[in-house]
């Protein structure tokens, strides 16, 4: 059959499909004609008209069936049947509107939670880079003992770019940083987020600017020569009202004039998950921005601040690229032994980069697992409801089967019902998902307390929607299949005989029982999980932070935004501290590079403890550090356990000193006094620093962290640009803001004050409300799961009661007490709850271990959680079973026996 054959038949088939009414009519007419001729024949043979008609009808053997066969021949019946099924399903669903509503709500809850977590996991792990061919973009990292994801230095980047052959382009970017921005030369600078990138950044990524152009290669060649900038799309919209005249305009960044040469497209908000840069500058302009002041960005090979990515050549495999880079790293090690000692390099795909770096993605996965658990509970609930509903239609189904409908056909009909339910539930669920994501966005200001442009990346975009729709379809199948299969396996004779048929064979109810057990165990697991999380969090809060959080004002500065050099910066801070100390209302002041429990990460310091024999593969140890001034320990109320804090006499000319925390002292000099010991910075030939004091260990980065090593260096000996001023006030800390403003204005009117707030508010958001959101989410899931389980159990027991009403009536008539009836009806239910509890406990236990390993380092088993959750669940479920059971025990026998 050639193609011309198909061309001929398609119109016929389409006609069958679209002009069904007409075609039906013609078929009727045709068969009618045949019938009449047959009757004529019969009459001609001598039968009476009536007999002839009778004989003809019999001969034609069932007109309807013939028609059905003819329709079958047209081979489009599956499609039209679907419409019929759908119409019928909608009608029957509307008849039991209460049940339908409940099912839809249940499904909506399950699908809604899952689609919200889909959006999380998508944003954190799977969403591809917003560039063409994102799968070929790989991340290059530098690796050491302590850090598998270290940055490269400028020189290293250039070597990688020029000496490797695996890539179609190697790009580099620095972390997004605070930049002082003024649209006009005289205006007070505001803090915006800028990102330094290599000249080939946009070109290699394949991002076409919406306006103007991207950087040229030559613009990133000579340090300081080309002051050009590309704007981010949102920034252009908000700051310049999408004015195309912005091209060629001069703006001032950190006091230096830059020319706007282009605007990035809306489709490219940035490569990072959270931060979206306001503008991009070439690496060559690094001197203007906040690079490490102690090192030369362009020359020092150990000034590692660059994030390197590359486009893998189509012909090259990951393994080849990895090998090539490993060889290059070895070469670095040989050529520059001092700075590249035991330092390797690796290449990672996007997925690897997102998942291997310890981070937020684990939360997303945990939430996804929990949400899927909720969905499972919802589906089992729905399946149970559909089962009981199908049971009540046994007679109808039996009749259908008897008149010749195929079993498969009936299953399709029932599945259509669950498909419709799942579609409704899916749509509602997606709406709920949107709602949850919106809720996340509304909490943005809590989670991101920063001046930089950052936002919650979760979105219900196309991929998430597709996944949610697929999930709905899957759940339709899941929920609908079991009831459909079971209810069509009906014993026809029995079904037609009595309206209330149910031969409760063991096998028949088995499915139902499994459902209840599954529900109970899953909701138990969810509740336990949220309880555990809440408790662990509570613990960490109660433990306290180790320092005094109250009455503190914090104000951040970064003099580099006003183009200060190191000397000017030091002078600024010295004067600031002096003047602030004299202000009335200020009890004490402190300057610190990072506030504790803040959003910014602490710097690290490499050192060698004096007198230590370093193992052969290590050049130094690492510790977290902070740069502080003399007032720090007093202002934050951190006790000095031994020795002293910093003094004004620890100046740049004085001997180098440091203060360590108790954890550090215990770690390196257990049993001995750390005061008086020395450490050398960077390596064993580095600057010796004397430890003059041991401070109490506090919580530095996270309320739930384990005690960590910590080193403090004095600001006077260790200049840093970005610092936070912390003032302890006698009254409300915010009252001091104006005084600080006045002081800063006298020192420099062009220097912006960043992040001005009461420390306690900051702490509340960072350490309390933030994690609180996560706990709320899990708790919500647990409650939803429990509600579903309760409804499921109630439904099951009520169903049992309705099924056995006649039997119960008889029992009561024969003298059974209410207690007996209660036991009869609830007994099975309780056994199921018991089984569910046991399984749920095991699962909850396993989940606790998983969570411990991933998140809280809490270790051990939290008995209290189980003690509270398990009996509560038991009680609640017993209540759910009790209510319908009690009703059963109250059945008047006469009424029950009359029940048909």
């Amino acid at each position: 059959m050639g193609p011309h054959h198909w061309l001929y038949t398609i119109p016929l088939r389409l006609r069958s499909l679209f002009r069904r009414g007409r075609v039906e009519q013609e078929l009727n007419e045709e068969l009618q004609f045949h019938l009449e001729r047959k009757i004529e024949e019969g009459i001609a043979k001598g039968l009476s008209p009536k007999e002839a008609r009778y004989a003809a009808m019999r001969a034609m053997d069932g007109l309807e069936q013939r028609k059905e066969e003819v329709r079958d021949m047209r081979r489009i019946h599956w499609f039209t049947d679907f419409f019929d099924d759908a119409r019928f399903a909608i009608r029957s669903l509307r008849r039991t509107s209460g049940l339908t509503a409940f099912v839809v709500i249940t499904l909506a809850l399950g699908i809604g939670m899952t689609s919200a977590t889909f959006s999380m996991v998508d944003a954190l792990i799977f969403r591809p880079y917003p560039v063409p061919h994102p799968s070929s973009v790989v991340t290059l990292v530098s690796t050491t003992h302590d850090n598998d994801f270290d940055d490269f230095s400028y020189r290293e980047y250039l070597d990688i770019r020029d000496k490797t052959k695996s890539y179609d382009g190697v790009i580099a970017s620095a972390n997004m940083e605070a930049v002082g921005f003024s649209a006009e030369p005289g205006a007070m600078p505001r803090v915006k987020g800028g990102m330094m990138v290599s000249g080939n950044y946009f070109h290699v990524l394949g991002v076409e600017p919406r306006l103007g152009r991207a950087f040229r290669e030559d613009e990133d060649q000579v340090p300081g020569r080309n002051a050009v900038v590309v704007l981010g799309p949102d920034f252009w919209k908000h700051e310049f009202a999408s004015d195309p005249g912005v091209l060629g305009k001069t703006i001032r960044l950190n006091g230096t004039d830059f020319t706007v040469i282009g605007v990035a497209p809306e489709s490219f908000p940035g490569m990072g998950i959270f931060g979206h840069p306001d503008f991009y500058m070439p690496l060559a302009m690094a001197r203007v921005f906040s690079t490490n002041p102690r090192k030369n960005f362009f020359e020092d090979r150990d000034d590692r601040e660059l994030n390197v990515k590359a486009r893998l050549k189509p012909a090259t495999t990951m393994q080849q690229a990895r090998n090539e880079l490993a060889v290059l790293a070895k070469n670095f090690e040989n050529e520059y032994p001092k700075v590249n000692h035991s330092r390797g390099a690796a290449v990672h795909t996007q997925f690897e980069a997102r998942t291997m770096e310890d981070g937020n993605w684990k939360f997303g996965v945990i939430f996804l697992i929990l949400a899927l658990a909720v969905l499972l509970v919802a589906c089992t609930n729905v399946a149970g409801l559909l089962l009981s509903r199908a049971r009540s239609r046994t007679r109808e189904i039996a009749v259908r089967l008897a008149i010749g409908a195929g079993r498969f056909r009936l299953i399709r009909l029932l599945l259509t019902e669950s498909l419709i339910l799942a579609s409704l539930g899916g749509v509602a669920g997606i709406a709920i998902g949107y709602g949850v994501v919106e809720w996340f966005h509304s909490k943005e200001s809590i989670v991101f307390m920063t001046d930089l442009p950052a936002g919650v990346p979760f979105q219900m975009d196309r991929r998430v929607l597709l996944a949610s729709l697929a999930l709905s379809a899957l759940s339709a199948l899941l929920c609908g299949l079991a009831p459909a299969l079971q209810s069509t396996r009906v014993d026809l004779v029995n079904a037609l005989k009595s309206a209330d048929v149910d031969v409760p064979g063991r096998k028949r109810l088995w499915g139902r029982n499994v459902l209840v057990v599954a529900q109970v165990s899953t909701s138990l697991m969810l509740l336990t999980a949220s309880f555990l999380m809440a408790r662990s969090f509570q613990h960490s809060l109660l433990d306290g932070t180790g320092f005094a959080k109250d009455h503190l004002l914090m104000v951040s500065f970064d003099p580099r935004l006003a183009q200060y050099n190191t000397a000017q910066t030091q002078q600024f801070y010295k004067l600031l501290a002096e003047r602030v100390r004299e202000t009335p209302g200020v009890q004490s002041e402190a300057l610190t590079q990072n506030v504790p429990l803040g959003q910014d990460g602490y710097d690290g310091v490499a050192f060698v403890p004096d007198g230590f024999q370093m193992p052969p593969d290590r050049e130094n140890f690492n510790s977290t550090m902070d740069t502080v001034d003399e007032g720090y320990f007093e202002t934050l109320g951190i006790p000095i356990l031994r020795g002293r804090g910093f003094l004004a006499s620890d100046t740049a000319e004085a001997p180098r000193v440091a203060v360590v925390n108790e954890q550090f002292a215990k770690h390196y000099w257990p049993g001995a006094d750390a005061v008086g010991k020395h450490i050398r910075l960077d390596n064993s030939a580095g600057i010796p620093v004397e430890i003059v004091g041991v401070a109490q260990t506090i919580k530095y980065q996270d309320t739930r962290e384990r005690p960590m090593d910590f080193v403090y260096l004095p600001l006077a000996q260790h200049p840093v640009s970005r610092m936070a001023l912390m003032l302890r006030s006698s009254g409300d800390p915010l009252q001091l803001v104006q005084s600080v403003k006045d002081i800063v204005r006298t020192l420099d009117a062009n220097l912006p004050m960043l992040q001005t707030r009461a420390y306690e508010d900051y702490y509340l958001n960072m350490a309390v409300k933030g994690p609180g959101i996560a706990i709320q989410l899990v708790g919500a899931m647990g409650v939803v799961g429990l509600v579903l389980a309760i409804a499921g159990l109630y439904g099951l027991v009520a169903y049992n009661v309705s099924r056995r009403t006649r039997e119960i009536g008889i029992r009561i008539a024969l003298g059974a007490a209410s207690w007996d009836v209660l036991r009869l009806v609830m007994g099975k239910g309780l056994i199921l709850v018991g089984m569910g509890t046991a399984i749920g406990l095991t699962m909850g236990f396993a989940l606790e271990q998983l969570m411990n390993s991933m998140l809280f380092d809490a270790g051990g088993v939290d008995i209290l959680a189980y003690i509270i959750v398990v009996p509560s669940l038991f009680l609640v479920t017993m209540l759910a079973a009790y209510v319908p059971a009690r009703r059963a025990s109250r059945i008047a026998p006469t009424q029950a026996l009359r029940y048909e």
Partner: protein
Amino acid sequence: MYHSLGNRGEPVSKPSDLVQGTLDLLLLKILALQPMNGWAISQRLKQISGEVLQVSDGSLYPALHKLEQEGWITAEWKPSENNRRAKFYSLTRLGRKHLEKETANWSRLSAAISHIVRLEEA
């Protein structure tokens, strides 16, 4: 004795391929001789085969519609002898080709079967 082509009295199922193919061939051949409606076809078949072959109504119309879907016959509503409207089928060019092919197949098949059936027992 007559053989009825079709599945009279049995539960709903599709005719076996061999029977269906044979029926198709017969219908096509009858229509090749002259266009006619469903009733006339069943009468003609009975007549030509001397009452040996009778097609049950349950098999006739599905078969006709299938042939129409395949494009081997085409239909037209025309008034019949008693001025009632009836659906008249006729062979298409494609159908004619298919008929030739199937006829050749049938000859080969029946010759082979006859040959075997006529073999002398040893």
